[in-house]
């Protein structure tokens, strides 16, 4: 009987914030485009048509075509799938590493805490771009490089968040009472601390997703990320930038718009989720 009330309440809080509803809609559209879009677009993103290069947006090609005559809309739609795949993998890897190390650091304290947190400091000292460039030099550019580079630069934030939350949760009496009934260290970390720190991690994941979309585009733009011919938003912009001066604006405009709207939607959704999980931050 309490359950339906609880969900109704969450629903209400979420709906009461118009911006987070817009954010959620954008994210849903983004995911839909990523998953089913490639099956319904009329052209393959890699088919070239030399009779129709650099065509401005028409009804046949809504977003226009690029210098090889490829349909820009298909490429942007495929780009969503690329961003989602990279985003989810990076989120997964960085959360797993960050949560495990963060909980161990926060719960054990002492030497473990010092070692892990100094490692975090070490990784935070390098901007993601630098890490990506170093890895790209070693293994060459590509999706793999991008995923490794972003995971390396993103796990640190998660580790700090998880550690901070663990520090505050381990003070609670139910942790002591679990110890008092014989709960082992591992049991307490896995069954009592982890479920309690998931909400803030979830919120930070939505926000990081936005950052990953941006970084993916940024790194691909400068050439250390996704390599052609994979249709990636940053890459499309990078290819199209030389045509701005000659007036072919659509080559940078549409992928740029896609990046902007997606990142905004993810950020709005993240704020909305935070309102639900953290009533203290809620705007009245």
């Amino acid at each position, binding site marked *: 009987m309490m359950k339906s009330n609880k969900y109704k309440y969450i629903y209400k809080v979420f709906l009461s914030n118009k911006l987070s509803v817009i954010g959620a809609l954008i994210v849903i559209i983004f995911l839909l485009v990523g998953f089913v879009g490639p099956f319904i677009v009329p052209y393959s993103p890699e088919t070239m048509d030399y009779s129709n290069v650099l065509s401005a947006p028409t009804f046949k090609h809504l977003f226009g075509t690029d210098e090889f005559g490829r349909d820009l809309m298909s490429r942007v739609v495929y780009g969503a799938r690329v961003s989602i795949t990279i985003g989810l993998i990076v989120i997964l890897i960085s959360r797993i590493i960050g949560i495990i190390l963060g909980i161990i650091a926060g719960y054990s304290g002492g030497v473990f805490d010092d070692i892990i947190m100094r490692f975090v400091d070490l990784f935070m000292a390098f901007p993601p771009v630098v890490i990506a460039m170093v890895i790209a030099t070693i293994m060459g550019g590509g999706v793999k490089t991008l995923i490794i580079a972003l995971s390396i630069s993103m796990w640190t934030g998660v580790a700090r968040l998880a550690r901070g939350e663990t520090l505050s949760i381990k003070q609670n009496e139910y942790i002591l009472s679990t*110890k*008092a*009934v014989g709960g*082992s260290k591992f049991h307490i970390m896995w069954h*009592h601390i982890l*479920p309690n720190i998931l909400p803030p991690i979830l919120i930070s994941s939505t926000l990081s997703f936005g950052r990953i979309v941006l970084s993916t585009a940024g790194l691909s733009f400068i050439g250390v990320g996704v390599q052609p011919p994979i249709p990636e938003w940053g890459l499309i912009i990078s290819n199209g930038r030389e045509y701005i001066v000659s007036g072919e604006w659509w080559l940078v405009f549409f992928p740029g718009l896609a990046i902007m709207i997606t990142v905004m939607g993810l950020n709005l959704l993240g704020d909305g989720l935070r309102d639900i999980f953290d009533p203290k931050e809620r705007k009245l």
Partner: protein
Amino acid sequence: MEKLLTVNNLNLNFNTFKGKNKVLRNINIDVNKSEVLGIVGETGCGKSVLALSILGLVPKPGEITGGQIYFRQKNLLELSDKELENIRGKNISLIFQSPMSALNPVFKVKKQMMEVILAHSNKSKKEALKEALRLLNLVRVPEPESVLECYPHELSGGMAQRVVISMAISSQPALLIADEPTTALDVTIEKQIIRLMKNIKEELETSLIFISHDLEIIKQIAERVAVMYAGNIVEIGDCNDILNSPIHPYTKALIKAVPSRIKRGQELQGIEGIVPELIDLPEGCIFESRCEKSIAKCKEGSPPKLKNVSENRYVACFNFEG
């Protein structure tokens, strides 16, 4: 009578930047089989730390610097973490002050109870669920089925404490330590919980260490009482003897200060002075600065030790040394 737990010359320090805070000094208590030992004392005298040290759960920077804790002839201080985990909850259980914070807010009562039951037995999940229902019935929770489906915040304080108690007794521990289990509850619920703990103690024949700052509660449940002051035990004896004819000046002052013994219009009686810092211990008796019966001997040398004054009665005071 068979001794279940013996604490022998226990010393415990909290190492702070200011110095060593000597929170427990030469504690000697023992608990007999199926007996209720009450521990009373004012805030900060070391009652809870004593309870935690029995289970090996003293928080950092606390450190046990001397003494032994024997439970069934085994010294708990020499056991490994693994061995202690097996004793905690199975042989010795602890009930905390605030029931609401002793339950994890993200799980239903059912999951938390089954977790404890499964940890110390090799029951199947189905049997564990049955056992959880039986335990809730034992602690007289009305509608146990619906309580199992509740999250902790959906329970009242008294109900949550019953759940906590039922978890603590799930493996029929030989010793139950209750650290002010009624402090967070209102007076009517307090009465119920105390009656419940008495019944459980009778039914399961467990020993009970009942910690409280309230003499009235101790009177209702304890058979023997240990009075603590600033990390020392100053007097131990049968509950009635101590409450009716206290010997140590601190016990006397404590009993005098109980509000219900004072008539309307009369001024409440406190104990003059404050508890001394436990970092730089004064010489002699720790209670000397607040004691009405201080004599020359109290101000110097080593503190008084517990001396047997009559049957089952021990007092740490120079006034009563033969």
